[in-house]
C-alpha cells in the first residue's frame, strides 16, 4: 500500500476505530517480539494452527450490514488459545505466543485478498485480534493447572470445560460491546440499539464458533493433529449456509436499490430521488433509535415509495409529489402499496408506503412519517447541496409541523442534515 492509499484509509476511520487498531497493533507487536525473543514453543502445533487461522481469514465473509466475519479463523484461534494438550502431551505456550500466531495467521490470510485489491476491514481484524488476545491473557495462565486436573481422570475435564465456556462468553460480550461502540460511532446510532443489533447478528454464528473452538481443543486431546482436519467439518457447513444467506441479503438490497431507479428512467421522478430519500430516511430513522430490521424495512419502503407512479397514465411533471394535490398523492401511495403487497412477503413495507401521505392526526407508523418528511425535503431541495436551500426547505417543513409532519422527525432531520457528512457512508 502506498502513502496516499494509506492516507485515504486513515481518513475514513473514526477515532474509536483508530484507537482499537493501534491497540491491536501494539498487542500484535508485543506478541511477535516476545515470541521472537524466547523462541516458538511446540513450533509444529503453532504452525498448524497458524495455517488454519490463515485459511479461515482467507475465506472470510461479509454479513449483512457490511460486517466482516471469519468463522473458521476465529474457531481455530479459539482452539489454539484453549488448547491444553495435543494427543496427551501438555502444551504450555504463553498468551503472547497465541497473540503472535494469531496475528501472523491473520495477516497471511489477508494478503491474498490485498493482492487482488480487496483490503480487509482494518477495524474488524483489529477487533478479532484484540478480543482473541484478551482471552489468551485470561486463559493461558490457567492452562497448566487445568491441564493437570484434566490428566487426573474421568471427571477432570469438567472444570476446564466450565472455565472455557465462561471465558468465551465474556469474550463474546466484550466483542459485541466493542463492535457496538464502533458501529454507533460510525453510523451515529444510539449505543443501546447498536448493542442489540450486534448481539442479534453475533449470537448464532458466535455460538457455532464457540462450540467449534472448544471442540477443537478437546479433540486435539484424543485425536492429536487429526483434529485440525476434521474439526472444521461442522463449521464448514455453517460457513456455507451463512455465505449463502449473506449473499442473498446483499443481492436483495442491491436489487431493490437498482429497480427503484425505474421511476427515474421513466421520467416520473427526478434522477437520484429514490436513493436520496432512502438515505435521508435511514439516517433519520437511526437518529430516532430504530433497530436494524426496522431500518431495512424503512429503506425498502423509502426506495419504493414512488413505485405507484408507474401505474399513472402520465408522469407528474418533475415528479414533485409534495406539490401535487393530496388526493392524487394518496392514490399513488395506494397503488404503490398494492404493487409491494403483490410480493406476498413485504406486507409491512407495503403498509409503510400506503400511509406515507397520512397526516399526523391519522397516526401513521413512524417509518411512514419519516418517508413523508424525507420525500418533501428532497422534492424541495433535490440533488443540490446548497445550504441556503436546505435551510429554506427545513423552514417550510417546520410550517407543517403538527399537521403534516411529525415534529420529532423534522427535528431529527434537522440534526442529520446539519452534519450531512456521514450520509454518504452508510
Amino acid at each position: 500500500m502506498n502513502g496516499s492509499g494509506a492516507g485515504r484509509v486513515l481518513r475514513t476511520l473514526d477515532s474509536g476505530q483508530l484507537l482499537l487498531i493501534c491497540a491491536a497493533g501494539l498487542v500484535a507487536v508485543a506478541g511477535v517480539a516476545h515470541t521472537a525473543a524466547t523462541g516458538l514453543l511446540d513450533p509444529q502445533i503453532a504452525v498448524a494452527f497458524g495455517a488454519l487461522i490463515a485459511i479461515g481469514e482467507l475465506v472470510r465473509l461479509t454479513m449483512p450490514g457490511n460486517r466482516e466475519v471469519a468463522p473458521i479463523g476465529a474457531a481455530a484461534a479459539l482452539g489454539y488459545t484453549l488448547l491444553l494438550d495435543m494427543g496427551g502431551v501438555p502444551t504450555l505456550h504463553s498468551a503472547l505466543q497465541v497473540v503472535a500466531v494469531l496475528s501472523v495467521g491473520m495477516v497471511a490470510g489477508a494478503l491474498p485478498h490485498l493482492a487482488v485489491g480487496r483490503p480487509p476491514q482494518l477495524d474488524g481484524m483489529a477487533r478479532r485480534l484484540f478480543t482473541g488476545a484478551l482471552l489468551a491473557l485470561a486463559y493461558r495462565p490457567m492452562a497448566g493447572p487445568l491441564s493437570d486436573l484434566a490428566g487426573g481422570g474421568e471427571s477432570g475435564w469438567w472444570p476446564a470445560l466450565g472455565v472455557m465456556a465462561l471465558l468465551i462468553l465474556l469474550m463474546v460480550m466484550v466483542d459485541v460491546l466493542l463492535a457496538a461502540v464502533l458501529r454507533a460511532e460510525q453510523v451515529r446510532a444510539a449505543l443501546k440499539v447498536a448493542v442489540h443489533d450486534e448481539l442479534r447478528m453475533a449470537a448464532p454464528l458466535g455460538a457455532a464458533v464457540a462450540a467449534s473452538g472448544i471442540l477443537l481443543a478437546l479433540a486435539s486431546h484424543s485425536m492429536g493433529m487429526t483434529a485440525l482436519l476434521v474439526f472444521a467439518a461442522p463449521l464448514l457447513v455453517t460457513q456455507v449456509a451463512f455465505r449463502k444467506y449473506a449473499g442473498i441479503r446483499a443481492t436483495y438490497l442491491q436489487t431493490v436499490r437498482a429497480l427503484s431507479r425505474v421511476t427515474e428512467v421513466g421520467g416520473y421522478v427526478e434522477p437520484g430521488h429514490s436513493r436520496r430519500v432512502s438515505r435521508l430516511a435511514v439516517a433519520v430513522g437511526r437518529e430516532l433509535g430504530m433497530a436494524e430490521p426496522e431500518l431495512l424495512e424503512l429503506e425498502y419502503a423509502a426506495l419504493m415509495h414512488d413505485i405507484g407512479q408507474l401505474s399513472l397514465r402520465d408522469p407528474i411533471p418533475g415528479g414533485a409529489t409534495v406539490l401535487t394535490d393530496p388526493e392524487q398523492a394518496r392514490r399513488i401511495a395506494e397503488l404503490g402499496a398494492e404493487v409491494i403487497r403483490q410480493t406476498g412477503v413485504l406486507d409491512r413495507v407495503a403498509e409503510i408506503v400506503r400511509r406515507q401521505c397520512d397526516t399526523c392526526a391519522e397516526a401513521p407508523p413512524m417509518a411512514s412519517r419519516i418517508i413523508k418528511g424525507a420525500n418533501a425535503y428532497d422534492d424541495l431541495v433535490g440533488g443540490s447541496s446548497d445550504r441556503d436551500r436546505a435551510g429554506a426547505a427545513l423552514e417550510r417543513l417546520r410550517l407543517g409541523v403538527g399537521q403534516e409532519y411529525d415534529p420529532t422527525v423534522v427535528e431529527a432531520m434537522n440534526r442529520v442534515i446539519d452534519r450531512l457528512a456521514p450520509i454518504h457512508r452508510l
Partner: protein
Amino acid sequence: MAALRGLPWFAKVYLILVIGVAFALLGYNVVSDGRLDLLDWSNLMVLALLFLVCESMPTLLHVRQAAVSVSFSAVLAAVVLLGPEGAALVGVTAMFSVRPGLPLVKRLFNSAQFAICGYVAGRVYVWLGGRSGVPTVAGFDDIIVPFAGAAAVFVPLNFVLIALVLKLTGQADQVPLRGVAQFMLSYFGYATFGLLIAGLWATVNSISAVLVLLPLFVARWAFGQYHAQQRSYDATIAALCQAVETKDYYTRGHCTRVSMAAGMIAEEIGMGSERLRAIRYAGMLHDVGKLGVPTKVLQKEGPLSEEEYAAIQLHPMRGLEIVRGIDFLDEAFAGIMHHHERQDGKGYPMGLAGDEIPEFARIIAVADAFDSMTSDRSYRNARSREVAMTELRKGAGTQFDPVMVVAFVKAVDRDGWEPPRTVVTPPADVTETTAKDHDDPTMPIQVVSER
C-alpha cells in the same frame, strides 16, 4: 395400516420385508443369551435421545427435495460406542420422532431401515477389528479404519433401501437421482461427525455431541433463513418487474413468462444451477429499460421515424444501466444487453452476429419472441403455440440461434407450456395500449428514413 392400501403389491412386499427383517434381527438379539446384558444402557439412552432430536429436525441441504437429517451420525456413533445391537436399538427409536403427520407405515419403515443399517454397519465395524465400547483416549487411531468401513457400508445401504422404496411407491420422480454424487458426499461428511462424537465421548461424554451438533443446528437455521430470503427475493423481483409492465395491459406477465421459458431452454441445454438462476433473473429483468422509451413512441400508429426507432433500440442499454448495481453473474448483464441481437447481425444495440452474441442473450431472444407471439396484442389476438413454433423455426439461423430454438421446442413438447396467467380485465382508467411490440418477430417495426 390404511396407508398401505393403494400401493402396488411389490411395494407392500418390500415394506413388510424390510420391517420384518429389522424386527427379526432385534428379536434374535433379545432371545439369544446375554447379548443385551453387555449394553451400556445410560449411553444408549443419551444416544437415542440425540438421535431423536436430530431425526425430528430434518435439514434441507444441497439437494432440493431430499430432507437430509444428521441423525445417522448418532447411529454411527452408536456403532462405535455400543456395538451392532446398540446401533440397531438406537435406529429403531426413529419411530418416535416428532414429525406430526408422518404415517405409521413410514415411521415403521424408517426405524426398520435405520436398525438394519446400524446393525450391518456395526457388524462390519467389528469384522474390521473395531472394539465396541467407549474408545480410550489413546485408542482413537485404532477406530478410524473400522469406522470408515462402517460408514462406507452404512451410507450406500441406507441410500439403496430408501431409493428402492421411493422407486416402488412411484415417488422416485420427486427425488432427482442427478444429485446422487453430491448427496453421498455430504453424507460421508456427516459420517465424520459420528466419528467426532465417538472420539470425544471418553473426554466429555454427551457434551461432545452438543459441541459437534451445535454448529450444524446453527447451519440449519441459517439455511432456513437463506431459503426464506430467497423466496422473498424471487417474489419481490417478480412484483417489481410486473410493476414496470402495469402501464401496458397487454405485456403484463411478460417478464415472468420470459423468465420461465428462458429457464426451460437453459435447463434443456444442461446449464448448471448457478447459471440457471442467473438466466431466470436475466429473463425477468430483460425489459426493465423499456420504461425509458417515451409512451408516445410505443403508442404511435404506423411507421416510426429513425429517431423514434433509436429510442426503442436504446432500451436494452437502459435496462443494463438500471440493473448494473446488482451482484449477478456477468452473463446475466450480457443477456439483458444483447437480447435483441440477431444471428444475421441485423439486431441491436451492437449488431453482433452468430457466436458473438452471448449465450444468455440467444436464449432470452427465443423466449422473448415466443411469449410476444403467444400473447394478445392490441392489434391482434394471441397466436397459437404451433404457429409461434413455426415462426421460431423459420427464424432459426437468421434471427434466432437454431440450437436454442430446437431446445425450446423439445422442452415445450415434453413439459408443455402453461405459464401462470393472471386473468385481469383491463381496468378502465389506467389502460394504455401500445400500437406496436418491439419483441414481435411477425410484425417488424416499420421505420421510415427521413433522408
